[in-house]
Every structure is written in structure tokens, then in C-alpha cells.
């Protein structure tokens, strides 16, 4: 697996500045992002022979064969495609698989793309995903009407009981990322907040308040990957994929492990091993933050702190781009900047921007090693990428 390290690079990246896209079909938004990323790379659609997408969920515009629909809409006939959908981290997983495809010669220029428009999407289309479908394993859970947030609530409550984590520590995650968003003109929410503000916001699903939850935006983004050799001749400084790991675990709430470990405990070590680095080597991190508890469990599973220690770790200011040991979500993350539903693509894009020194929010000086990490569903899956310049 080490053979894959450094053999490919992200050569173009683009995040749509939109946070509201009324009546814009998600495919139209994806096209804006794909062209933006290709322009950034100095490439055109004619160069693209690989397409990765996961556009079949609600407000994403596609169906079961979404990657075909998207290719048709764009107007290309890719010979390498990947529409693996493992939730929000799908695009991080796809980056690793695209790297393997490029290294083995299945593709030369791969676009990874995502957009969704939940703010205006009018259709309540039938879904067969495990969070709504009351058949098979879901027949024992869905009739009780859990919400996505309440499942994160189950994790957060148990973390408090097992490890003494407090609502104030959870709130600090939202406060820190809002400080970063304040510096990002494109962030959805930029007004600074306090721990008290988070705790005073309405309870959604205990123990999570409204400000423990991400923003809901229409948005999208795309990245372009190619081989190390071809990347040398392109206009932007290549950002190399040094490490990759992914894993899936469960969908049903009854299968949540007692110690709250998540598949990040598998994806992280694989990514670090491939890259030949340790958590201490990471200069800047982008860690999926759908809710305040989300990055906390990742910090433990990825080894940035011990099991149960994430509450103290975040409260001590380690995630702050203003002097923290692990500057995280430097653009404001999903809690404050951008979260259409599957924000894994933005962890890649902001990692690239940080390594180029062009972060739109807080820029970490001289960053050389970046970590992009995401989960899918409710800690159902995980994917980790380590990028270097």
C-alpha cells in the first residue's frame, strides 16, 4: 500500500461561493464546480477521463445511476467512474480510490465532484436508505422515529456518561470554528459566538442544541487529480496524496460499540501508515463537523488524543488556528461555513488551499502536511486522506 503514497496529486480545487442556490439544479451547480476546479488546474473537460460522484441522495439531483446521469449532463464519457456512496466522506474515499486508479493506469485525469441544494429542494422523494426504510434491519428502529441528530445525541450523551465530557466542552468546538469562519468571507455564519450562546440555543435532540449543529447550505465543490508526472507540468503547485484509509462499520443504532469507537479507528492508522507520518506531524486538519460531537470522536480515533479525552482536548484550545496544536477547520467547517449534506469534498478543498497558502479563512503559516477526514451517516463510515506539498 505504501507504493501508492505520493504517486498522485490534487491539481485543481474549487468550492462554490454559493450558500443559497434557489432553483439551481444540483447538477448545474456541480458543473460550475467542475469547471472551476479544471480552470484552477489549467485543464479542460476534454482532459477528463475519470469521474467520481455520489449524487443519488436527497437534494443531490441524481438517482441510483447518478454518475451516468451526471456524466451525461456534463457532456463527457468517462472510462473510469466511481459512485461509491458511504455518506459524507464519500469524496475522501473516492480520492483514495482515484489515486489507485490513476497509479494503475485506469485513468489519467479524475474529477471528484459534489453538490446539493437542500434549502430549496422541493421533493420528498421515497428513499431506501437505512435511516428511513422500516424493512430488514431498519424494521426494529425506524418506527421509533429517530432523527439523524438524535443518533448523534446518543453518542454525545454516552460520551458524557463514560468520560465526564461536558456540554461546555462540546460547545467550545462550535465557538472555535465560528472564530475561523469570522475570517472567511464566504462562510455562512460569521458572527462570533460564546459557549453560553451555544448552551442557550434551543435544544434539538438532547444533549445537542441548535448551535451544536451544522449550517444547512446549498453548495458544492470539486477537485481534480492526476499522476505525479503529469502534475509537474500543470499550472498549480501539486498537492500530493501521501496517505489514504477508509472503513465502514454499521448503520443500525443497536450496533454502536460500547466505547463509542468509530471506523475512523481503522481509516486513520491506515492513512498514517501509508504516508509514513504520525498525528504529531499534521500541520493542519479538516475534520468533518456535522455536529460538535462529530470531530471529537474523530480526534480520539485518529490518535490526536486518547479515548475519552477529546472534551479536555477541545476545551484547551488545541483546534484553534490562533495558536492551537492542531489548527482544525480553518474555513469554519460545516458548523459555520458550508454543509449541504455530504461535506467531505470541502475537507479536501480546504486542505489544498492551506497547503497552497491560500485559505479563505484562517491560514496556517507554512503548512506542509494536511489531514482531511470525514465520516458518513452517523459514524457509519470513515475516510482519511493525508496530503503533502
Amino acid at each position: 500500500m505504501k507504493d501508492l503514497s505520493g504517486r498522485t496529486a490534487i491539481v485543481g480545487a474549487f468550492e462554490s461561493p454559493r450558500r443559497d442556490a434557489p432553483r439551481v439544479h444540483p447538477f448545474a451547480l456541480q458543473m460550475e464546480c467542475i469547471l472551476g476546479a479544471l480552470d484552477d488546474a489549467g485543464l479542460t473537460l476534454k482532459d477528463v477521463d475519470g469521474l467520481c460522484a455520489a449524487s443519488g441522495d436527497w437534494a443531490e439531483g441524481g438517482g441510483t445511476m447518478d454518475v451516468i446521469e451526471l456524466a451525461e449532463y456534463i457532456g463527457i464519457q468517462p472510462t473510469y467512474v466511481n459512485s461509491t456512496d458511504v455518506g459524507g466522506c464519500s469524496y475522501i474515499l473516492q480520492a483514495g480510490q482515484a489515486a489507485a486508479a490513476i497509479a494503475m493506469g485506469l485513468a489519467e485525469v479524475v474529477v471528484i465532484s459534489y453538490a446539493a441544494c437542500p434549502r430549496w429542494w422541493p421533493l420528498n422523494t421515497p428513499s431506501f436508505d437505512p435511516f428511513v426504510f422500516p424493512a430488514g434491519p431498519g424494521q426494529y428502529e425506524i418506527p421509533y422515529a429517530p432523527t439523524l441528530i438524535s443518533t448523534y445525541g446518543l453518542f454525545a450523551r454516552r460520551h458524557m456518561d463514560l468520560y465526564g465530557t461536558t456540554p461546555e466542552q462540546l460547545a467550545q468546538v462550535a465557538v472555535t470554528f465560528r472564530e475561523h469562519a469570522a475570517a472567511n468571507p464566504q462562510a455562512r455564519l460569521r458572527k462570533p459566538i460564546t459557549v453560553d450562546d451555544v448552551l442557550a440555543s434551543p435544544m434539538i435532540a438532547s444533549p445537542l442544541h441548535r448551535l451544536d449543529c451544522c449550517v444547512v447550505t446549498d453548495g458544492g465543490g470539486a477537485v481534480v487529480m492526476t499522476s505525479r508526472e503529469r502534475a509537474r507540468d500543470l499550472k498549480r503547485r501539486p498537492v500530493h496524496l501521501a496517505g489514504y484509509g477508509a472503513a465502514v462499520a454499521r448503520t443500525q443504532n443497536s450496533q454502536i460499540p460500547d466505547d463509542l469507537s468509530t471506523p475512523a479507528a481503522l481509516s486513520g492508522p491506515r492513512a498514517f501508515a501509508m504516508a509514513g507520518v504520525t498525528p504529531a506531524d499534521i500541520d493542519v486538519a479538516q475534520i468533518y463537523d456535522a455536529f460538535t460531537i462529530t470531530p471529537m470522536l474523530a480526534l480520539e480515533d485518529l490518535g490526536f488524543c486518547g479515548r475519552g479525552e477529546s472534551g479536555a482536548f477541545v476545551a484547551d484550545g488545541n483546534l484553534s488556528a490562533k495558536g492551537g496544536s492542531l489548527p482544525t477547520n480553518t474555513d469554519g467547517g460545516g458548523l459555520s461555513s458550508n454543509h449541504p449534506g455530504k461535506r467531505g469534498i470541502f475537507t479536501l478543498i480546504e486542505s489544498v488551499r492551506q497547503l497552497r497558502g491560500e485559505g479563505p479563512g484562517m491560514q496556517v503559516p507554512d503548512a506542509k502536511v494536511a489531514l482531511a477526514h470525514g465520516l458518513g451517516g452517523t459514524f457509519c463510515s470513515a475516510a482519511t486522506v493525508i496530503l503533502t506539498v
Partner: protein
Amino acid sequence: MTAMTVLPIPDETSAPFWEAAREGRFLIQRCPETGRHQWYPRAHSIHAPHAKPDWVETSGRGELLTYSVIHRGNTRGDPYTCALVRLEEGVTVFSRIEGVAEEDLRAGLPLSVAFHRVDETISLPVFRPPSDAGGSDA
């Protein structure tokens, strides 16, 4: 029951579970080779994949592992509590908690199963404090 939106769709594997639920009994599965329990029910044993699991009746007793009170986001009515319950037999099930005020919810709270009769086919298990379990309408 508040905000119950959809009914379960029973199948060949789950039929014995819903049949027992109609009689006020909560079944789980046991591996015939290893004797280990499993939840949720499957057509195979996850401990011995070629073995077909047996059904066994639980005591219906357990304790609260973790919970979330849903105030907003899916409910047209009052807040309701979704939870993980650890049964005495060692498996963890997802369910509703009823009959406990939000401020009294805590990990380790003793619970007993009760059943809501929804229609001729489905009686849905929920969990309540043992003294309150007589409130079942199964």
C-alpha cells in the same frame, strides 16, 4: 405513541419476533453453535455464519445505556425519547423510553418492556420503569 411515522415491514426472518410481540414477549436470537445472543435478528448467526439462529425469549428487563430526547426536527407533538437499552441477556436494542421525565433519565436506569398494539400485526415494544410496565396496552 408520539410521532410514530412508519410501521415495520415484517419478513420471513422477523415473523416470529412480531408474532411473539403480539403476545407481549420480546424475543432475541441465539447461535446454536456458540450459544451467543444476537440482536438485530438475521437469517444467519453472525457468530457462525452457516448456522440458523434459534429464537429465545428475554426477561424483558434491562437498563438504559444512552438516550436522546427529540425536541425538534421530526415531531409534530411532544418531545419523545429514543434510547439504547441493554437487555439482561447482554444485547443492546434501540427503542423508545416512556414514563420517565427528562430530568430523571440517566444511564443505568432499570427498564422493562411494554407493548403498544398498533394493529392486528404489529405490537411495538417500548421500555418503561418496571413499576410502570403495567401500562402496556398489548
